[in-house]
């Protein structure tokens, strides 16, 4: 299973974290610091896997961002590497050629998308189309609620509260 997902920038800034195994805040910070050190220092033409404390970390760099996923020793590394790519493709489709800034300012969106892609540390949906459809449906739900809230009656209701 995937124990956690980590997006870090080349400068070591955290852009997204998601933990599927229980780590305390302290452990989380430690993991990020340690792994950041290991992964950012690796050269460009090396393999995408790193041994780390009895686990394996599969990572891939996209422009200035490193996508990392931590898995068990016996898990299939290439499969996870392609989950990363699958995630990136979905982000790309959603944001329209995604860049680091998109993820910085819309990190909450990235969380929504990740929650449709992975669950319980396992791949949940392998169809990009389905994920896109679900995210669009969520967006429109939020949109509808917003419209309702901004309708005149609501404004009055708010004002007189």
């Amino acid at each position, binding site marked *: 299973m995937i124990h956690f997902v980590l997006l870090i920038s080349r400068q070591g800034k*955290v852009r997204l974290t*998601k933990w599927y195994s229980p780590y305390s805040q302290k452990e989380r910070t430690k993991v990020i610091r340690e792994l950041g050190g290991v992964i950012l220092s690796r*050269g460009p033409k090396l393999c995408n896997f790193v041994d780390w*404390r009895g686990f394996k970390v599969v990572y891939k760099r996209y422009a200035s961002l490193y996508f990392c996923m931590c898995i068990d020793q016996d898990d299939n590394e290439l499969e996870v590497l392609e989950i990363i790519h699958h995630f990136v493709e979905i982000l790309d489709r959603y944001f329209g050629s995604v860049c680091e800034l998109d993820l910085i300012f819309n990190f909450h969106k990235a*969380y929504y998308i990740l*929650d449709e892609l992975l669950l319980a540390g396992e791949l*949940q949906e392998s169809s990009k189309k389905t994920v896109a459809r679900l995210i669009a449906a969520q967006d429109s*739900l*939020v949109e509808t609620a917003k419209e309702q809230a901004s309708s005149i009656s609501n404004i009055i209701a708010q004002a007189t509260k």
Partner: protein
Amino acid sequence: MALHGMRGLSIFISDIRNCQNKEQERLRVDKELGNIRNRFKKEKGLTPYDKKKYVWKMLYIYMLGYDVDFGHMEAVSLISAPKYPEKQVGYIVTSCLLNENHDFLRLAINTVRNDIIGRNETSQCLALTLVGNIGGREFAESLAPDVQKLILSSSCRPLVRKKAALCLLRLFRKNPDVVNVEGWADRMAQLLDERDLGVLTASMSLLVSLVSNNHEAYWTCLPKCVKILERLARNQDVPQEYTYYGIPSPWLQVKTMRALQYFPTVEDPNTRRTLFEVLQRILMGTDVVKNVNKNNASHAVLFEALALVMHLDAEKEMMSQCVALLGKFIAVREPNIRYLGLENMTRMLIVADVQEIIKRHQAQIITSLKDPDISICRRALDLLYGMCDVTNAKDIVEELLQYLSSADFTMREELSLKAAILAEKFAPDLSWYVDVILQLIEKAGDFISDDIWFRVVQFVTNNDDLQPYAAAKAKEYLDKPAVHEKMVKVCAYILGEYSHLLARRPGFSPKEIFSIIHEKLPTVRTTAIPILLSAYAKILMHTQPPDQVLKNQIWAIFTKYESCIDAEIQQRAVEYFALSRKGADLMDILAEMPKFPERQSSLIKKAEDAEGDTAEQSAIKLRAQQQPSNALVVSDHHPANGAPPPISVGHLTVVKAPNVNDTEDHNSTEQAPSQENGNISKVDPQTPSADLLSDLLGPLAIEGPPGAAVQYEHNAAPGLDGGPDAVDGLAIVPVAVETNTIQPIVNIAERFRALCLKDSGVLYEDSYIQIGIKAEWRAHHGRLVLFLGNKNTSPLISVQALILPPAHLKMELSLVPDTIPPRAQVQCPLEVVNLQPSRDIAVLEFSYMFETNMVNVKLPLPAVLNKFLQPISVSAEEFFPQWRSLAGPPLKLQEVVRGVRPMALPEMANLLHSFGLMISQGLDPNPNNLVASTTFSSDKTRGMLCLVRIETDPADRTQLRMTLASGDPTLTFELKEFIKEQLVSIPTVHQAAPPAVPAAPPTPPIPSNDPAALLAGLLS
């Protein structure tokens, strides 16, 4: 574009980005946290939008690595908001901020449950996602039934059902009891018929977890998995959106093959054929393509297929295809494929007999060892370590040594440990071993654990002819300019003990030896000084005739350290000084160190942290085998004779130079050379270590409960004892009852029979533990490793293993830990020496406690006669003189055996072959006879040739005549009886199984001209 941002949040993020340094960022964050705290306090004016905005900001701050210790309540409370946007934010932020152990999460259980059982699909999804990501045990217990309903519900859409399936997987991992195996197995099979690939993928992940825990209950899923695989890999029948770079859902293919690896075999021939066709297609049909992603995806499938083939132990043909593929992979430039090639080759070493083929790639693997990528180096090191044996040890160890100086620092410790282990295990001669270890210390002193030099000291102490060599080497190393402290320690120790053996050589006079050691004293830390002092004392003792100048010099040093602040140094200085004035008495006290009890390597122990216990039990581990990279998890060993090594206390420490120093050095008692060595000292035998303690007390602890339980069972009924006894009785009776409730889930007798013929597999398994075995046999020595795997999330306690060896076997089991941690596997090596021929069977008495269940089983161990047989082919020129020279009883025995299980001649030949007898074709002119030969090894007989002749009667296959010959009467008899047992019925252990009914297919009698004549001895 649906990017409706939140202005406040965006501004905050920009502010953070504009901070020039960490300090500014901290100030900005603190300001924001203060603001949020205030707003949350006077909750009155907070709109849902504000709340949303603030919890997002909190999450952002949290993600940056700051502590956010308030506002959790607000995040959790958003979960119960009526409107979707707030609810969504509440769920997501909660599942990011909190982990399963957080108290606030409990507050949410009810709301979450209401959302799950409610009719609103979007709320269901949010709730399932939260539980699937951070649900803990409490969630498991209260929500599992509802979640199960959702998976199967026909009114739910796929988006809910796939989430429910993964959610159940999470809950199952937290508490396996929430899935009722009987009820769920059929439904699981039903789920595999699902057409929606999203739901199917999720269900397959669930299945993998379920079968890893209990494959037998889910056997109906097996053919369905094969069908799914066939559909994906062969028919490519999947909707377009589920193909990934043209490959039908590679993830589902991988998961399906992973699930199949948890089933021990595929029995149904049709299913098996289909599966192998598919696997064959994957193995052969995967090409390297330009597109990276397509390549990765197809190779993900390919490597999983490889793993499955290895697991199913397919026909040799397919296995060799796998080796060929891997050989190709380890030579490619693409680093990922090379990495995986090395990794899978290492795995293959464990499951299949491919050592010889893999050896051909040695040069290639060594190239990878020197790769600039440390990940690849590690895999190459693991593989080299796994493939090393006597034939290539010298080359491999020397490569490792050479590489040591240029290796990445993070690898050096593992590298040197592995080199040391290999050098010890496969040393062609001991002086080479000493050379290797000294080179290791020289090149990587900082990375060498003390165990490594302790071990070389043990070897030198135990081998008289090695001592002068070691002393000469030690001097050579000390003569060098910059010497590592560990080198000083080991050399000083060796020179102190043995330099007097070389005293006649130039440069080895006591004076010279003293001065080269003493030269190093200023360079070492205080921890090394006691060893130097001991060496001085020994040198002084060995100086014959006494040398006044040297004596004064050494006394001056002792005097100097008499006031040392370090108590150990001070004590030694004072005592050595006093002792050395006693003259001849010194000889008795400072005599040469006695031999260490023969024992297993102390090095082969935990070299790396065991893998995290969150890990699911992998397919490979379930097969009771482990990769060499993790294989160094071995407990401490104790001396052969089991005598408690007394700890040295007080003034007698002087006899045992490094002892106290060692304990002080790393504060543990493990493996210090002198500790086991103390048998001769007359100190009170105190138990020095926890390990030993458990060893001594262990048997009592284990014998206590069962006995007590039985007694209580008898006494409990009257229940008149009153007082605490009655209470105990009540408490213990259920225990006694439960003793019988845990049943093995394998047939012990059957497992034993299987293991008599092969060298690795499962010996025993019940719902808590799995005991695997792996054996290596070399002449009359055997090395078995017991793999004790805890299948649960709670520890197994009071683990006890006792070997009841028959008289002809010397067996030595290393210490079995008292507790096996959750999901962990421990390895316990067992050394076997065959003293003389016998058919008696060794028994392992094994017991443990799980919660209140006491399990106690007796397991026959497959250290049987045929393990010591080595097939040997004998030509006619060799056979006949031997056969004639062994004339008549007791060296040659003949017997007519009746009631033989009817079998065709080739079948019998196969049977004999499987027990290690080599059939010699054409030696006997009669086609109905079999002639076979083998060598039997035992301590008494050494390697002894045995000759067998079996004359069959094609007209009556239930009888035959057997003639056995060997140079040892016991061997002849035992082997004859052994073969008879194999022929008469399916071999049974202790008559556990009823004698087998001859169920073999009736073989049509082969017409023959003169059946009677066939039985006439031709060669006698």
